[in-house]
C-alpha cells in the first residue's frame, strides 16, 4: 500500500469510527449485549452448568468474545450498504483517491471497533472473576486468532453489504453467525449434546476456535484444535475475500 492509500484509508477509518461513536445502537449491540449475555450465563445458568473448569467465566469468555465479534461485523455490512445507497460510495470512486481505501476503511473500522469491544468485555470478565495464567506469547496468539476471526467475518460482511437489496438484508446474514456459538463448545462442553448435535458442534468452526482460545488462556496444550481453527479461519478469509472482491468489481464495473 502506498502512502497515499494509507492516508486515504485513515480518513475513511476516522469517518466510520464517527458513525459508530454516534450510534448508541451499535455500541449497545456490540458491547453491552455480549456483556449482558455473560452476566446471564455466569450468574443465572452458570451454577447449573458443569463445564469442567473451576470457574465458569474462564470457560465462557472465549465464546462471548466470538459472539461480540459476530454481532459487530453486521454493522460493517450495514454501513457499507448505507454508503452505496447514499451515493457517497460513488462520490469517493469519482475522486482522485486510492479506490481500495474505500473498502479498507470499512475493514479497518471493523477491526478497530471489534478490538475495542473485545478489550472492554475482557475487562468486565476480569471483574467477574476471569483469571488467566497466559504469558505474552499466549496472549499474542489469542489476539492473532481474534483478529483473523474478525477479518474473516468482516469480508463476509463486505459481500453482504455490497450485494444486499435492503438494510435488513445487509445485516440479516449475521444471525446464523451469532447463533453458531450456541451450538458449539462455547457455552457447554459438546459431550452432553445428543449425537447429531454433538457431531455438528464438533465439526463447525466455532468449537475449535473457542477451544483453542480457552486452552491458550489456561496455558494448556492446544492440540489439533489450533490447526483446525486456523484452517477454518484462513479458509473463510480467503474465500470471503475473493467473493467480496468479485462483488466489488461487479459494483464498480
Amino acid at each position, binding site marked *: 500500500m502506498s502512502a*497515499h492509500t494509507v*492516508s*486515504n484509508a485513515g*480518513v475513511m477509518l*476516522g*469517518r466510520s469510527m*464517527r*458513525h459508530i461513536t*454516534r*450510534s448508541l445502537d451499535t455500541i449497545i449491540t456490540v458491547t453491552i449485549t455480549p456483556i449482558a449475555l455473560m452476566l446471564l450465563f455466569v450468574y443465572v445458568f452458570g451454577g447449573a452448568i458443569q463445564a469442567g473448569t473451576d470457574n465458569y467465566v474462564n470457560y465462557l469468555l472465549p465464546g462471548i468474545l466470538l459472539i461480540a465479534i459476530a454481532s459487530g461485523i453486521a454493522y460493517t455490512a450495514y454501513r457499507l450498504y448505507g454508503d452505496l445507497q*447514499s*451515493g*457517497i460510495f*460513488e*462520490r*469517493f*470512486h*469519482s*475522486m*482522485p*483517491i486510492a479506490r481500495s481505501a474505500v473498502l479498507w476503511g470499512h475493514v479497518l473500522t471493523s477491526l478497530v471497533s471489534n478490538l475495542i469491544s473485545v478489550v472492554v468485555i475482557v475487562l468486565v470478565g476480569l471483574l467477574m472473576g476471569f483469571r488467566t495464567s497466559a504469558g505474552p506469547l499466549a496472549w499474542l496468539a489469542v489476539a492473532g486468532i481474534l483478529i483473523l476471526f474478525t477479518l474473516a467475518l468482516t469480508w463476509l460482511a463486505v459481500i453482504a453489504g455490497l450485494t444486499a437489496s435492503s438494510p435488513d438484508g445487509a445485516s440479516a446474514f449475521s444471525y446464523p453467525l451469532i447463533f453458531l456459538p450456541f451450538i458449539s463448545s462455547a457455552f457447554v462442553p459438546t459431550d452432553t449434546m445428543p449425537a447429531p448435535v454433538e457431531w455438528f458442534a464438533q465439526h463447525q468452526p466455532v468449537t475449535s476456535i473457542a477451544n483453542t482460545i480457552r486452552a491458550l488462556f489456561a496455558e494448556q496444550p492446544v492440540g489439533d484444535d489450533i490447526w483446525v481453527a486456523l484452517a477454518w479461519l484462513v479458509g473463510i478469509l480467503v474465500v470471503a475475500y475473493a467473493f467480496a472482491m468479485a462483488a466489488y468489481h461487479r459494483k*464498480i*464495473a
Partner: protein
Amino acid sequence: MLDLGLLLTLYPPMNRGAMNTPEPAIRISGLQKSYKDLHVLKGVDFDVARGSIFALLGSNGAGKTTVVRILSTLLKADAGTAAVNGFDVAAEPGKVRESISLTGQFAAVDPILTGRENLVMIAKLRQVERPKEVADGLLERFGLTEAGGRRVATYSGGMRRRLDIAMSLIGDPPVIFLDEPTTGLDPEARIEVWGIVQNLADNGTTVLLTTQYLDEAEKLADRIAILHQGVIIVNGTLAELRALLPSATVEYVERQPSLEEVFLALVGDKTPNGKQDKEERS
C-alpha cells in the same frame, strides 16, 4: 517545437471566440451503452470547450446520467471514446479523476457527519492544504456557516444540495459535472447556484450540466445539446437552436420561441406540461 495547437493559440482566427482552444475539455465520440436489452446510448458525440458551460438536456431516462457516469469513470462504455481534460476515461481513469469533480443527481453527502466534517473529509482525501480553513470558507460561501456544526441528517434538501456542490469545488478541478444541480431547490437557491456555476466558468472551469429546467440551460449555457433516443439530436448555442424553428414572426405578437418550445418540438412531446412528472422524485 511548434505544433498545430500552439499555432492556433498564437493566431486565433478572427471569427472564433477565445473559448475555442484547440483541445476541448471533454470530447465524446460514438459513445454507446446498453443496460442488458436497453440500448440507452446509441452513438453520442459532442465536445465541450474549455472554460465553457455545456448543458445536456433530455427527457427522463434519456441517458444524461449515464453519460455523466461514463465521464466520471463510474461506468464503462460499450463502444466509442470519451476523453476528459485530454485523458481517455478508459485508458487513464486516474488522470481523469484528478481532473474532475462530480455532483451526482442525488446529493452524495454523509448524513451522520456534520456539514463541516463532510467538507474536511473531502479536503483531506484530496490532500488539500489547511482542510479546516477550506471547509470554513466554503461553508461561508454557501450560506451554511451556522448549520456547519450540525449533522447533515438535519439539513433540508436545499442545504444538502448546496453542501454537495461545495464538496465538489474542493481542490479546484478543471472540469466539473453537475447532474441536475438545481432539482429540488427553491428559486432563490437556484439563482444562487447559477451564480456559482457562472463564477466557476468565469474562472476557467469547464462545466457540464444536465438539467430538466430549460430556463436554466437558456440562462447559463454557452452551448446546449439535446440527447434523445440515444443520440444528440441538436447541439448549438441558444441562438442556433432558436433558428431551427420557423421564427415567431407569423404570430401577431412578436416573440422568440422559448427554449422549451424548441425542446418540445424537437423531442416531439406535444403536452405542454411534459416536465410535470419530474415533481414526484424530489
